[in-house]
Each structure stands twice: as structure tokens, then as C-alpha cells.
């Protein structure tokens, strides 16, 4: 299935990845090739086949809602790009 360049731009925006203008054309071609390949699936009769999300058909286990870890904020913030007063810094979001 062919995919248009503007659709790639839309997906890239959804995925929050900026793509340089000179790369969009090639990327569109490559993704079109991948989508053409996966289109083989459309020919398969899957009526009444239950989708399989887990290979063992296992369901998510729940555990007791108990605190098992101490507060590791300092360890986690030590590896962050920008922090101040225990907060993660990002560019201003609200004027």
C-alpha cells in the first residue's frame, strides 16, 4: 500500500520525531516498501481467529499494592539532563 509523503510527516509528528526535509522522500519510499511487504497479511482468512497478544495467552498478574522500594529520587535525578530543587526542568509550557 503506497503511503504519501504528507502521511509520513503526520506519523512522524505523532511519533514526535523530526525528519529533515531532504530525507522525507527516501524515508517514504522505504516505509512504502515495508508496508507493501506486510500487505501479504491481508490475503489471510482470519475470520473467527482471536488476536494473540501474549504467546502463552497469559494475562497480566496483579500484585498486592504495597510499597517495596524506598524513595530513590536523588539517584534517578542524578542521571537527568536538567533538574532543579528536585524537579525535572523542561522548556516553559504555559505562558
Amino acid at each position, binding site marked *: 500500500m503506497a*503511503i504519501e509523503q504528507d*502521511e*509520513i510527516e503526520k*506519523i*512522524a*509528528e*505523532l*511519533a*514526535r*520525531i*523530526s*525528519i*529533515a526535509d531532504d530525507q522525507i522522500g527516501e*524515508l517514504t519510499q*522505504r*516505509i512504502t*516498501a*515495508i*508496508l507493501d*511487504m*506486510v*500487505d*501479504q*497479511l*491481508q490475503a*489471510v482468512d*482470519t475470520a473467527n*481467529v*482471536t*488476536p*494473540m*497478544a*501474549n*504467546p*502463552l495467552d*497469559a494475562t*497480566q*498478574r496483579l*500484585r498486592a499494592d504495597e510499597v517495596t522500594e524506598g524513595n*530513590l529520587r536523588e*539517584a*534517578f535525578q*542524578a*542521571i*537527568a*539532563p*536538567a533538574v532543579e530543587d528536585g524537579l*525535572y526542568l*523542561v*522548556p*516553559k*509550557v504555559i505562558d
Partner: protein
Amino acid sequence: MHTKSVADLIQGLQNKDYSSTELTRCFLDRIAVHNSQLNAYITVDENAALAAAGLADDRIARGENAALTGVPIAHKDIFCTAGMRTSCGSRMLDNFIPPYDATMIKQFNAAGAVILGKTNMDEFAMGSSNENSYYGPTLNPWDSSLVPGGSSGGSAAAVAAGLAPASTGTDTGGSIRQPAAFCGITGLKPTYGRVSRLGMVAFASSLDQAGPMAHSARDCALLLNTMAGHDPLDSTSSTEPVEDYSAQLGNSLQGLRIGLPREYFGEGLASATAERVNTALGELEKLGATLVDISLPHSELTIPAYYIIAPAEASTNLSRYDGVRYGHRCQDPVDLHDLYTRTREEGFGDEVKRRILVGTYALSAGYYDAYYKKAQQVRRLIKQDFMAAFEQVDLIAGPTTPGTAFALGSKSDDPLAMYLEDIYTLAVNLAGLPGMSVPAGLIDNKPVGLQLIGKHFDESRLLNVAHQYQQVTDWHQQHPAVMTEGAA
């Protein structure tokens, strides 16, 4: 020392033939000599390795040996190691020093193993050649013009070249078995959920599984004994009881029924590879096994199903890399949107971006049913093929890969050609089964792998069959020239 098996090293350390410090020093010296060319390791911390070896020697002196006390091991750079960089082969995590250990790393530490270093890999485990690493490709120790396979290419090359006696890898679509085949070593992808995924950087969560890589099935069993087990912190971790994987190695293969899927021996399989695999199957017959023709009719759909499911899960998992809490962040973002989009443009390589985009597309409004749901339905059909086959046979055998290791650069411009490399390995992940690659010959000095596929949680039988094969063949003891060069 560097050519010895893990089993022999455990014995040698116990007998005090050598210390863990001497052993670790031997491997560090070999890494210093050979890694600049092979590029099998991304990070080696000599001081940490020698400190751990010293502690192991103290324990051995006190007679407090655990299962792997003092044995040096390499870990794929996808497992979080507290205080030691875990890059996942990506610029995104080039500066990431985890504040905690993966459960599997904790298990190896508790067993007394020494961490030699972290091995090279395709970025976020996406690739079949190791050429997608931010740190440059690992070279194949048998021939430096060839790829080692991927994504656990560094782990395979390190063992093949004698830069580690054993290593860990992960396998989402063949990433342990294909590099094991290309580098002439033994690798096992356990059943989905057998080894904890906590602290293993996520690629495709319903497919990812960690496993051992070593020279022999016997050594893989020793490593799996340490790795396998339930982890309450991983909600997909299995509660099936863990066996002693070394205990069944000696069983006879008399009466064993081995299925040969005709789809794995058809067009696309190189004739020389087919010949070596058939010779190996003949050895299994001599050991008492019966070969049975079987069919896995949905085999050709494994590539399209995988290349929807894996990218869809990857696009979700990799959304966490936002430049806020850890990892790469772009310079001087003008606003939050710019921070996200530029951080991710700079931090991810081409193949990772492609898969995120394909996955985002497959999951986006209007396409979900046509792609993701359809792929999940086909996934069930693929699993049902195996379940039907296992009513007739005890395990399945065939080639690991369509051919031997290919030349660096020969497929890196063509993602679809690269995807075809995993034609015989993907189905195992989709069905959640255990699979192994076992050295089964050389073609022009390039290794060939025999793949063994077992029923869910039947790792013991796979290891048993591989071990029995390795008792009557010596392909697993054939080494590239680099193994015998340098420090002894």
C-alpha cells in the same frame, strides 16, 4: 585459560588451579589486544572486573563458592548494570548510567560471576548484522569482512574470539540464534517469560527474551540455571517451576521424534547450508532419533506478522525517550515540542526511526484493525501450526539461517533483504517457544548453525539434544584463528 569451557573454569577455580583474578586478567588482556579490531565490547571496566574477581577469590578461599563464583562473563549492553553505562547501542542512551541492576544481572552477581564488560549490539536490538550500532559494527571473528549477525553480535563475537567464556544476549526475532550461527557458538532463546525482563531495555515486550550464549550446550545449561526463574517484578515472568538444566544432558535420544518443517528446507535455503544441516540431522538419527516430515503452513507469514507486531510494540516502548528524565537531550530546545522531536531525531538511528514510524502507522486510528489486529490473528495461526506439529514430534529442527555470515555493507541499504535473514527464527518468538542454534559445520571457514525448536518450557530437552550432538561432533570446538592468538 581462555579456550576452556565454563564447566572447566568452575572446576579450575574450585581446585585453585588459577584464581578469578588471573582468569579475569587473562580475558581483559585479550580484550585489550583484540577489541580495537573486533569491536565486540562497547564498555569494559577493568577496575570493576578485577575488584569483583578479588571478592570472588576471597569467597573461594573461604569455601563459599556459589554456582559461578569467579567466572568472568560478558553481558549484552541491553541489561541495566548499576553504575555502569547501558547504551543499548544507541546515542539516545550513550550517557545512561542505570541506578539499578536488571534482575538477570542480580542473578549473575548472586551466583558470583564477574562482569567483564558490556557487548556491542544493533541499536535497541533492531537488526541482524550489528551494523545498526551507534558504536560501529562488530566484526565477525572468523573473517573481519563479514558481519557477526545481530542483534547480539557483540556477545557472539566475544565468545567466538575468546574474549569471554560465555555471554548473555536477547532474542526478539532471532537475535541470539542468528549471531550464534554466524559466529560458530551455541545460543539458547528460552521460552517467553522464562528469564526476567526487568531491567532489560524493552524493544517488543511480547517477544523479547534473554538467554545464554557459550561454546557448548553444557555451558548454556549452566548459565540458564542462573538466569531462569520467576520474577515478581516482571508481570509477564513465568511461574513454571525451574528445572536443573544440567541434569538431563546425558539422556539418550533413542525414540526421540524430530520434525523437519518442509517450509524450512525449500527455496531460499543455500544448498551448502542445507547439506551441512542434513548431515547434522543424520548424526541425530544415528543417536537414535527419528526424523519426521512436518509442515508449518503459515511460515511465509512470519516476516509480515513480525514486522507489524515488533514495530508496533517498539513504537510504544520507545516513546519513553523524551529527553526529560534520562538519556540524550538536544541542545537549547525552544519549546517542549522541539525538545521531544529534536531529541528523538538526534538520539535514534535510521532503522529505529523506521520501525517507530511503521509501528506508529500500524497503531494509528483507522489502521489498527487492518494491521495490528490482523497481525495478532496471524500470530495465533503461526502458533497453532507449532502446536499441531508438536502433537506428532518432540522437537523441531532445521537451519538457523538461510546462509552463512554475509559481507559488511552488503544488506545495510536494503531493510527488506535484512529482514529475510530471520525467516527461520521469527516464528519461534511469535509462538513464544524455546529455540537454540548449535554449530553444525563450516562452509569456506564460515560457521553454519543447526536450529532446534522445543515445546514451551522444554529447554532441558533442547539442551539434552544439543549436548548429545556435541558429544559426537566437534564443530563447537572449532575456533577462528583469533582464538589462538594473543595472550594465552
